[in-house]
C-alpha cells in the first residue's frame, strides 16, 4: 500500500545478521529491514525508510527502543493514526 513511500514502523527483532534484520511488526506480520547494523534480538527498533515491498523496508534512520515496549498500544495508535484520525497526521 505504501510501497515506494517513506514509512515508519517498529519492529520486534527476531533475527539479525548484518545486512538483513528480520522482525515482527506490531500487528504480527513479518518484516525485513535492510541496512541496519547488528541489533540484539528481542529488542524493539523503530525504522524510518522507504518501503521496498509490502514486507520490507530499506532503513534510513533507526532508533533502538530497547526491550520494554508496549507493542499493543503502539499498534492501536497506528490504527487510529491511519484510520479515523488520519487528518491529524497527514
Amino acid at each position: 500500500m505504501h510501497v515506494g513511500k517513506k514509512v515508519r514502523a517498529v519492529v520486534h527483532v527476531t533475527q539479525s545478521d548484518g545486512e538483513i534484520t528480520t522482525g515482527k511488526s506490531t500487528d504480527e506480520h513479518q518484516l525485513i529491514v535492510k541496512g541496519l547494523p547488528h541489533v540484539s534480538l528481542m529488542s524493539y527498533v523503530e525504522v524510518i525508510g522507504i518501503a521496498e515491498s509490502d514486507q520490507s523496508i530499506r532503513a534510513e534512520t533507526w532508533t533502538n527502543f530497547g526491550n520494554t515496549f508496549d507493542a499493543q498500544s503502539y499498534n492501536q495508535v497506528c490504527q487510529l493514526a491511519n484510520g479515523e484520525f488520519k487528518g491529524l497526521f497527514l
Partner: protein
Amino acid sequence: MTKCVSPNAISTILANPSPESSSDVPEIVVQVIELKATGASGNRFMFTANDGKMKLRGILPTNMGSEVMSGNIQNLGLIRILDYTLNDIPNKPEKYLIVTKCEVVSPPLEMEVKSEVKSEETGIVLKPKQENEIKSEVKSEVPGIFLKPKQEIVAKSAAQIVHEQRQNMAPAARMSMTRRVFPLVSLNPYQGSWTIKVRVTSKGSMRTYKNARGEGCVFNVELTDEDGTQIQATMFNEAAKKFYDRFQLGKVYFISKGTLRLANKQFKTVKNDYEMTLNENSEVEEASNEETFVPETTFNFVPIDSLGPYVNGMELVDVIGVVQNVSSTMSIRRKSNNDTIPKRDITIADATKKTVVVSLWNDLATSVGQELLDIADKSPIVAIKSLKVGEFQGVSLSTLSRSVVLVNPDLPEAKKLRSWYDSEGKESSMASVSSGMSPSSKSGSRSMYSDRVSLSHIQKNPSLGEEKPVFFSIRGYISFIKPDQAMWYRACKTCNRKVTEALGSGYWCEACQKNDEECNLRYIMVVKISDASGEAFLSVFNEEAEKIVGCSADELDKLKSEEGEENPYQLKLKQATWNSHLFRVSVAQNEYNNEKKQRITVRAVAPVDFAAESRFLLEEISKMRVSK
C-alpha cells in the same frame, strides 16, 4: 355498632396511665359530662368522663375545640378516646385525664349514663336520641348542663361511620381498610395524607450528635414497598426514641404522616429522589399477618488487590478474606461530641496474596469482633458488606452502621477461599495491599489513574473542595520553580515540626519540649505545573518535593551557598523543570483575608509509566468515540 360507653372505661384508663401509642389504647367510649369552656380564650374544654360506673375529670385536646363549638361534641354526648395521658393532681389522690386524641361517637344522650350498659350491635341510627338502646334502668337524674342538639340529624362522615362499624376490630386492620395504601413511588412532598405499607430492609443504629442547636439522637431505616421502591426514613430525638424499638428489620409496617423532602445527595444511600422524616405525630403500625422477611444479603466482592481505585471514593465495597489478625478493642474519642466508641482492627487476606486492615466500629467491634478474636487461630473466613475505603496506610477499610459481617458464611466464594487457604494460602507470604501499590508513595500508582482530570477541570471549578478536600490525579510537567521562594523550613529531627532558634545556640522544638543543636531542613514549596489544558500552582511538601527536585532540602541548601559559573542551585531547579510526573492532589478551599482561594496540594508523586499512560490515553480516546 354500639352507641354506648365502654364498660369499665375509666378503670381501663386508670390502669394504664400512659399508653405508648394510640395502638395501645383499647376501645374506650365515654360520656362527656360537665362540659366547660376554659383557658385564656375559652377555646379549651374541660369535662368529666363518665362510664356509668366511675367518673374522671379531664380536658379535651385543643383540636377538638372546633367540634365542641360546632355542636358535634356536646354535654352528655359520647366520645371515643384514642390517645391520652393520665396526670397526677398534686396533693390529691385523683387523676386528671388529658385526652390527646378522640373522636365523636354520638350526640348527647338523654341523660347521664348511670349504671351498667350492655353493648349492642345495631345498625347506624341517624336519629339523635339514643336512649332506647340503654337497656338497664336509667335514673331520671338530669345533672349538669343538658343541651338539646339544634339539628335533628347528625351528619356523620364516611370515615366516622366506618370507624363505628369496625369498632371492635384490631387497629391495624382498621387502618388498612379505612386508608388507601399508596405506592412509595407516588409519594412527593406535596401529597396530602398518605399511608404506605413497607418492609424495613435495613435498620441503622441510634447515633447521638451535637450541633449548634444542642444535642440529639437520630437513626434511620430503609423502607421497601411491594413494588420494590425504596426510601430512607429518618427520625430525630423524640421520634427516634419512640420508634427505635418499634421498627424491626424484616417486619412490615403501615406508615403515615411522615414528611417528604428532596434527598441530600451527600448522604443518600438509597435510590430515591426523596427521603422521609418521621416525627412524633407520625403513625407507624405493624402490619399483622405479614411474614417477617429479612432480605438475603447479596455480595459483590472486590479482590483486595483491586481496592486501589476505590480509595476515598463514595462507593462502598464488599470484601471476603481469611482473618490473619484480630486486635483488641480500642476506644476512640469522636471529635464532634467527645463520645468514645469502640473499634477493633482485623487483617484479612485473600487469594490475590494481599492483606488489608478492616476497622470494625461500635457493635461490630464488640460483638462479631470478639467472636473473631476467639476463633482467630482457626483462620476464619469473614465476608463484609458495605465498607468505606479510606487512604490510611494506603488502603484501609471501615465499617458503617449498615455494614454486615458474616463469619464463615455459606457462600461459594467462601468455599473457594477456604480451599485456596488450606492448600497454599496458609504458607504463602502476603503483602499489605498498600505496599505493592507504588514503589515510593503510599497513594499507589493505581490511584494515579482514578479521578484523573486535567488542570483546567480544577481551575474552572473554584468551589471544588468547599466542604471536604477532593482528590484527583493529574499528569503534568513542572513548568517553573521559583528560585527565590521560602523553599524549606527548619524542622525538629524527631517530630518534623517547625523549630525556632533557641537563645544561645541550637533549635527549640515546642512540641517535643527540647533543644537540639541541629535541625533538618524540610521542603515546603510552591511549584507551577502545566498540562495540555492549563497551568496551576501546587503546594508540595518534603517527600514529594525531594522526588521532584532530586535531592533533599539540606543538600539543595548546600548548593545554594556554592559559588560557581552557573549557580548550581539554579541549575538543580532548572533540571527539575519540564519533567513530567503523575501527581495525586487534594483540592481544598482556604480563606485568606476574607477571600476564598483554591489550594491544590500534592499528596503523592510518581514517575510517568509511559506504557500505562498510553493505555490510559487509548482508553480515553475510545471513550470519546463511544460518546459520539
